């Protein structure tokens, strides 16, 4: 399918519909991230619908080896979202599970194969489909932010060039933040090390997971940043838990909240 900018929908022969995919834990714990995503897409002229029958994409089940549960979740997801032209979500990890791992469970399903290329992480959607060159309303965010590349966004969705690969450097998050006025974008030492969340890893091995998170936060703090900015609420939740426990100053922030201009309220 040729990408057609939503903003040109008025000229398009038919209405393009976006299915908003809000991962389960974002729905319950980070509704403001979901709302920011919805509002951002709408303000760019997209017709967005949030299908109420959606539930978890099945990643926690898959990651713990429950093939049947993962398979059922994948079929449910496909059923709920197959009618949309695009499916967009503010979580790299969940999108990566849908686009990179459903094949382990329902590769034979033609409906899934049709759906797969239409599923996008929000930053990818803004950049690759909408070809966003400016924000719907100008945003001034005069703060230092340290970029947190989440592992699945980085290494499975190729949000940036992983430091292990000898390929030219690029970063989607850095590129989109160029549209924001006043922001000072920094990269931590060990620019793409895991924060230690890792789905149920964080409760399987709490001591190790927390140790990884503490180290990661220290690397972000060392940049002098006020915010840790990422595209994956799960990593931000994990680091946020440690930050609050230790009473640190630095704040986790989803990138969409900056792009909608309400970042400081997070």
């Amino acid at each position, binding site marked *: 399918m040729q990408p057609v900018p939503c903003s040109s929908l008025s000229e398009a022969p038919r209405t393009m519909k976006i299915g908003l995919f809000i991962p389960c834990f974002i729905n319950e*714990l980070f509704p403001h991230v*979901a709302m920011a995503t919805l509002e951002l897409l709408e303000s760019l002229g997209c017709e967005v619908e949030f299908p109420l029958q959606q539930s978890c994409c099945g990643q926690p089940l*898959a990651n713990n080896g*429950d093939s049947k549960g993962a398979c059922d979740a994948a079929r*449910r997801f496909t059923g709920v979202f197959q009618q949309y032209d695009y499916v967009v979500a503010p979580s790299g990890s969940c999108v990566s599970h849908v686009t990179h791992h459903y094949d382990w469970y329902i590769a034979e399903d033609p409906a899934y194969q049709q759906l797969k290329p239409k599923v996008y992480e929000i930053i990818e959607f803004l950049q690759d489909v909408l070809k966003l060159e400016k924000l719907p309303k100008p945003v001034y965010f005069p703060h230092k932010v340290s970029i947190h590349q989440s592992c699945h966004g980085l290494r499975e969705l190729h949000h940036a060039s992983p430091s292990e690969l000898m*390929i030219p450097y690029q970063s989607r998050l850095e590129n989109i933040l160029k549209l924001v006025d006043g922001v000072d974008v920094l990269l931590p030492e060990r620019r793409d090390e895991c924060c230690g969340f890792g789905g149920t890893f964080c409760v399987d*091995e*709490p001591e190790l997971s927390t140790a990884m998170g503490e180290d990661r936060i220290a690397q972000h703090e060392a940049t002098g940043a006020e915010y840790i900015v990422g595209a994956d609420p799960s990593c931000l939740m994990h680091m946020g838990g440690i930050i609050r426990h230790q009473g640190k100053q630095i704040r986790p922030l989803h990138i969409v909240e900056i792009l909608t201009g309400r970042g400081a309220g997070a």
Partner: protein
Amino acid sequence: MKDDSVKHPQAAAEFLKDRAQAKWHDSAIWWVRQKRDAQAKQLPEWEELRRLAREIKAHTLSQLDDYLAQFEANAQKNGVTVHWAADADEHNRIVHGILAARQVKKLVKSKSMLTEECGLNPYLEQRGIEVVDTDLGERIVQLRHEAPSHIVMPAIHLKKEQISELFHKELGTEAGNNDPTYLTHAARANLREHFLTADAGLTGVNFAIAETGGVVVCTNEGNADLGTSLPPIHIASMGLEKIIPKLEHLGVFTRLLARSAIGSPVTTYTSHFHQARPGGEMHIVIVDNGRSDILGNEDFYQSLRCIRCGACMNTCPVYRRSSGFSYSYIIPGPIGSTLGPSRDMKKHGSMAFACSTCGSCSNVCPVKINLHEQLVLHRKKAFDQNLLPTGKKMGLLAMRFLTQHPALFDLGGKVMRKVVPIIPESLTRHSAWSRAGRDLPPMPAQSFKEQYQQRSQNKKDKQDKKDKEEQQ
């Protein structure tokens, strides 16, 4: 040999109790990862080399039986005796048979993870043969009666002060002298003595070349060369996956190996062995020990491409913060976490879960093994074999059910959001989320779904009102 009852979460938590030591371990190994990056960056063709290495190995594995037969025939033409061992025990019996027949009293070994895998040292020692590991790191852990904690840097878990203390006790060095050069010299003098008095030498094999029947051993200390040049008998133990088809393929791997392993352009010694030294004899023992089973498994056969560089361990944030001893299988880290469960899921199952699935290992791997995916596939096996802890399994089954019943899922979420804020902290403090120092996220009053429905209703009401006004 390692204790296979080790469970990763507990062992890691134990290791992390000394946070300073754990931080030091993490930084020491990350430094090697950085050296690897710097070296890889020097080669514009790095990614191309990885692709080639992957393809050569994939091709070889697809015709492994032919290449092994070719290798055997060519090695025999060179006068080398080739032995086949189906498992660890047969390997040990063959090695012991060769040594016993020649009244060998002392064997010098150049580092071989395969002999660790087979438990050769205790096997021979029980039968009256002295075994001396000659790689410095390997020697250190041997003197401490420990297993290697890393496949390339076996003593990376130790600081120089600890080694100084060990050498003072075992080799009579000055107490409190922590100078690395002094300590290395002392170890070297001691090892020279063993090289000169050994009756046989055993090495591992990095690469076996089907076309020539020769084997290649890479070391940085030259200990394989000393161990094979001084005593009259050379035994080379190799896993059957070590084959590459032709000599011309070797350069692809030697360029990747040292850079990936320790961040140096080459290993100091890349030694080729084709036949015994004059008057001596050379034996090659080709070991299966479960490798054929892995080769026959479509999910895991890729792990046999491994060239044992250890880069996956160096990059692994879990390994760096938990050390090799928190893994039950002899090979730790990402590659060990797929090889271990492939061998025995019951014993090594916890290794497949010792991973945040960050994927760095798959990216760093010079032969492009899909390591982090393999670990998830092992979890599938663990679930299917009913090896998950009961609580976790129940949780997953509940999650499975809720995923199919969104209304109940929503209700569960709502209850959580209402109840969590009123639970006294004393009750949540010991939960798996909180006990290591994480607060729970603030609980919003409404879920997004509730906000969305309200928003849609408000919009509809507004529209209705507008329509009504227009009608009037």
